[in-house]
Structure formats: structure tokens, C-alpha cells
């Protein structure tokens, strides 16, 4: 225990004396939070919406107002042809065209005067929405935003306490009702950054001792591989946790990402996740001999899968089966569900124990393999 302190202190000296790596470790989380939460904003806003209004009642102008005031749709100044509404999409002057058929006013009136379901029958009133599908994200967003707006309109016009069963909204968005991508990305970013700092810096620091020959001197002193590993990784655990808080704070204050669940629970899982990440870093460093290879290896083995195969950006259920299977050994996959669950839904351990069990198992396996492989001998 006493010797671990010296290794950790020495490692801390290294970190503090290399301003470049320190700046990276502190700035990277902030820049990445900004990038993902802001610049790479997957929120679709300002969908250019043209409207063809055949109804021309107060109800139809009311509906148009609901669309344009939602913040997601913007008005189109170019005229839209009634005969060929697609033309405006082809020209790129609009992303979507809303067609309000005649009879909206009457349909709304019927809604308002509903007493019971049996007494009133409404004709199948349909609204038309033509969307430019060449931008799939935008098209999907236009569809779901429209259905949210329309269901809201129906709800507002129904008499109090009346549930109207005739409208089925195909998609419900829970927990992130504004569909703000920053709410999704900031928790995910914690997973990515913890992995990056822990695995990448750990593998680089051990590779550096090998490359510069200091490992040769270190290994002839009375110190065990476990002491070296623990001592060297401790400062990076601290750095990773600091970075985690940085992202959390930045996401909370700057993007207003909510934190509903238990901080303590997140902290505990964060530490478990960091141990798994460190194990991967140690594992890489036992294989490679140079810092450069360690850096590239860590990028390939940790950062890439954590971004691509964790559900951070792409949904796992939409992946090919082979990739879906691979995601099971990506620690970020489990931690991502945990961190989103705790932050956005306030989930407790009773809902997250499956992910937690997987994560703990993965951390134990990785760490025992890594310490076993860590050699007491030089090449």
C-alpha cells in the first residue's frame, strides 16, 4: 500500500508537468460537450413548411399557427402550387407541405361537442403531409413533430376529461419530450470521455515507461505488477472522475440537461466503469511497446466502439446481428443505459441491475486478464 503511494505521486508529477496532456484532459470534455451538445446538433429545427389550405376557417389558421409557433417549423414565402405540391420540395424551397383538406373546421366542432363516443361519429378527416425524404432525419422529425402537434390540437379541443380513442399516435416520446439531443448526448459523453481518459492515458503511460526504458529500472525494484498498475492508474481514475463531473456540470448548466436520479449511484457505477476502461488500457499496453501504438490501439479498441457500438449515436437494435452481438462486450453499452437511466429517468438499482451485473462482470474479467498478462520482464 505504502509503495502504491509513491507510484501514484510520481504519475501525478508526470501529469502536472506535461501541460499538453493536462490541457487535453481538461479541455477535451468541454469541447466534446460543446460539439455534441451544440454544433453537432441532431435536433431538427426550422423545417421549411409550406401549407395548402383548402379549409380556410379559423380552425385551419389556428392549426397553421400551432405548427409555426412550435419552433420546429418555419414559414415558406415562395408560393406552393395546388396542382403540383411536390414541385416546391423539388425546388428545395420547402422541406414539407401540409395539406389541410376542407372540413377541418367541422371536424373540430364535432370534437368540441362530443358528449359520449356513441352519439357522435366523425368522418375520417385526414390531413396530408408531404415530406422531402432525401433528408431522412429531417423527414422523420417532421413526421413526429407533426403528430405531436396534431394530437395536442385534438386534446385541446376535446371536452375536459374526455379521452378520444379514435386517434392513435403512432409514436410516443418519453423522458425527452422536447427531443433535445443534448439530453441524450451529454450522459453518453460521460461514458465516452471516461473511457477515453482511462483507457487511452493509462495505456500511453505504461507504454511510455517501456519506450523510455524506465520500466527496466522499475522492475528490478521490490514492487509487484499489481502495485505498479494500481499506482499508475489511480491518478487517472481521479482525472476521469473530474472529467465526468466537468461534462455533467457543463451539460447541466449550459444545456440544461436534467439530473433526476441519484448522484451516488452514478458515482459508484462510474467507478466500476472506469475500472473496466482501465483494464482495457492496461491490456493494450501489455501488447504494444510505443506510446504511438498505444494511442492508436486505444482509439481503435475503446473510443471507436464506445461511440459507434454503444448506442451513443446509433441504436443497437438497428444494427446487423453480428454487430449487435459485439456490442455485448462493449462496456460503454451498459454504462450508457445506466447513466441515461439515472440522469434522465431517475432509475434506481432495481431497474438497472441487469446492466450493472454485466458491467461488473466485464470489469472483473478484463482486470484479471490484464493483470495476469502484465509482464514482470522486459520484451
Amino acid at each position, binding site marked *: 500500500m505504502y509503495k502504491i503511494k*509513491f507510484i501514484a505521486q*510520481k504519475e501525478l*508529477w508526470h501529469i502536472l508537468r506535461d501541460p499538453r496532456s493536462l490541457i487535453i484532459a481538461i479541455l477535451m470534455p468541454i469541447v466534446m460537450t460543446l460539439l455534441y451538445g451544440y454544433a453537432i446538433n441532431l435536433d431538427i429545427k426550422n423545417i421549411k413548411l409550406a401549407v395548402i389550405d383548402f379549409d380556410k376557417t379559423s380552425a385551419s389558421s389556428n392549426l397553421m399557427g400551432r405548427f409555426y409557433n412550435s419552433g420546429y417549423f418555419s414559414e415558406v414565402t415562395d408560393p406552393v402550387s395546388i396542382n403540383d405540391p411536390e414541385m416546391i420540395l423539388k425546388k428545395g424551397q420547402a422541406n414539407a407541405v401540409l395539406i389541410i383538406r376542407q372540413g377541418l373546421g367541422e371536424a373540430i366542432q364535432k370534437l368540441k361537442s362530443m358528449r359520449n363516443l356513441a352519439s357522435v361519429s366523425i368522418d375520417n378527416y385526414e390531413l396530408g403531409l408531404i415530406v422531402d425524404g432525401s433528408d431522412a432525419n429531417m423527414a422523420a422529425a417532421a413526421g413526429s413533430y407533426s403528430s405531436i402537434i396534431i394530437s395536442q390540437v385534438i386534446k385541446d379541443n376535446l371536452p375536459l376529461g374526455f379521452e378520444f380513442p379514435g386517434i392513435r399516435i403512432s409514436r410516443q416520446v418519453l423522458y425527452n419530450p422536447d427531443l433535445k439531443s443534448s439530453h441524450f448526448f451529454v450522459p453518453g459523453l460521460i461514458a465516452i470521455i471516461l473511457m477515453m481518459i482511462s483507457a487511452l492515458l493509462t495505456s500511453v503511460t505504461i507504454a511510455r515507461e517501456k519506450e523510455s526504458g524506465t520500466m*527496466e529500472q522499475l522492475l528490478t*525494484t521490490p514492487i509487484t505488477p499489481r502495485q505498479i498498475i494500481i499506482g499508475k492508474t489511480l491518478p487517472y481514475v481521479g482525472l476521469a472522475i473530474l472529467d465526468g463531473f466537468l461534462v455533467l456540470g457543463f451539460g447541466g448548466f449550459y444545456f440544461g440537461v436534467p439530473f433526476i436520479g441519484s448522484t451516488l449511484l452514478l458515482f459508484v457505477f462510474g467507478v466500476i466503469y472506469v475500472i473496466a476502461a482501465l483494464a482495457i488500457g492496461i491490456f493494450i499496453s501489455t501488447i504494444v511497446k510505443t506510446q504511438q501504438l498505444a494511442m492508436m490501439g486505444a482509439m481503435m479498441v475503446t473510443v471507436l466502439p464506445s461511440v459507434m457500438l454503444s448506442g451513443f449515436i446509433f441504436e443497437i437494435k438497428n444494427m446487423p446481428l453480428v454487430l449487435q452481438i459485439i456490442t455485448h462486450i462493449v462496456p460503454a453499452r451498459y454504462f450508457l443505459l445506466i447513466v441515461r437511466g439515472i440522469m434522465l429517468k431517475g432509475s434506481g438499482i432495481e431497474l438497472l441491475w441487469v446492466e450493472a451485473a454485466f458491467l461488473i462482470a466485464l470489469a472483473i474479467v478484463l482486470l484479471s486478464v490484464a493483470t495476469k498478462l502484465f509482464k514482470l520482464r*522486459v520484451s
Partner: protein
Amino acid sequence: MNLVQISNLDKSYGQLKAVSNFTLSADQGELLAVAGPDGAGKTTIFRTVCGLLEYDNGTINLAGFDIDKDFDKIKPLLGYMPQNFSLYPDLSVEENLYFYAGLFGMKKNEYQQKRERLYQFSGLGLFAKRRAGKLSGGMKQKLALSCNLIHDPKILILDEPTTGVDPVSRRQLWDILKTLKQDGSTIIVSTPYMDEVALADRAIFVHNGKKLIEGKPNELLSHFNSAIYKIKAVPSSGIMDQLNQIEGITSRRFGSSIHLYTRPQQNMEVYYNRLSQLGISAESISPIKPELEDLFIQLMEQSDA
């Protein structure tokens, strides 16, 4: 008391045999030099002895402990200084010492006393706050040595500590080694410089992973079994080619002159005729005393033949 005992050590890297059937022993208070050119296997032997490399055959016994069974007991008694600078350049002189003292589990006041003593004999005290990477070559080696002396090792293994070090620092390092030896340490030091061999109690010549000869420096030269002559002539490649065609002598460039080696008890005069044909007069040939380097080269060639 025998502190280091290496017996019949074999070590290969794949097909390449780096060390074969190597035996070495060193007593307490002995300063042993292992001499040989680059690639002779010195570093491989030292790394193996310090437990950094696996070996194929043989036994290694340090301070009475077998390296395979009781390496943990050996470590606190051992100081090993690798050939390349192996300390942390971004840590100061003092921090490097502090770090190694910590690894050897030293108490704080114990460390402080030891540090002052190390500063005294190495002269590093003036540079205590300087980063190790900013030290001169000689100072770096003194620091590396100091870090390996912090725990008062019984056995000190130094891999070419004087390579790339200026002559003054070389001399100082050897003076330090002699003091340590007098204090009872067993020191095994490798060197490519033959002049340093003379400073050791005993020397082992190594070539191609094999021991060529072993003995006290002043007795080693009795094994040299030929005569050497120096020729004052420019060693052009033309003249060297023709000299090498003469039966019974070996010639070698030696700086800006040529050394000729005859067979044992051979008279040089029988060659005067041939040599004068090459434009080498008898007056330009003079006998010289053999040195350890000459012995080494002779043994090396006999071993290669």
C-alpha cells in the same frame, strides 16, 4: 563469500544464441569487469541476472537465493543500472531519489540521511532541484547510480555506466565504484573500454555470448602468445590487402598506423624482404608491448576461427 554465482547460462532469441554456457562468480567486495564489444551479449547476461529476461538453461544464484524461486528476496539486495538512462527526465534529481527510496520502502529520516551522503560523493547536491533530463551525461549516470545505491544493495550490476560519458566523469565513476567495493559491495560492471578493465579486480572477456578468458587484469596479458610490431605507414586499402596475403602474420589498422601480429616465437626479420617490396622499410617497423585490447582481439579471432 560468494555473492553472485551464474552457472552454465544459456539464452537464445529464437534461432540466435545470445549467451552460451556462461559461468560467472563474484565474491563479496569484488569489483568484476565484463568486457566485450557491442553485441557480445553483456546486456543480455545482465538483464537475465537481474530477472528481466527468461533464460533457457543454467542457474542464477544471488546472495544465496535462486532467482527463479526467491526473486522477491533478491530484489532488496540488488541494484541494477541499465545501459540506457532509465530515470524520469521530468522529475528533479531529488524527486527521482525520493521515488526510488519509496519503492525500496525506506523511512523518511533514513532516506534524508542517505540522500545527503549520496549528494556528497556524487556532487549532485548542487543540482537537487534540476530536472534529470537537463543534466549532463556524466551527471545522469551519477544520478542513476545514486538511485541504485539508495537502499545499500549488496550486489550492484552496472551495464556500461561509462559509455558516452566524458573522461573526467568516467574517472570519477570508477573512483566511486572503488569506494563502494571497499565498503563491501559486490560490483559487476560491463564496459567496452579495455582501459577500464585494468581498474577492476578481475575481468571476464565476452564475445558472441561466450566467455573468452577470465582473470586478474595484470595476469591476463601472459595469455597473449604473439609479438606485435607497429609500422609507420598509411593503412591504405591496397597495402592492407597485400599485407593480409603474407603467410604467418596478421595485420590490422590501428589509427593512422598498422599493427602486425606474428605467430608465437616467430622472428619478424624473415618478413623484411616481403615488406620492403611493399615500400615498408625495416626502420619503420618497431616492436611494441601488447595491451589488453590486443589480447582481446587475438582471443576473439581464435574463437571465431
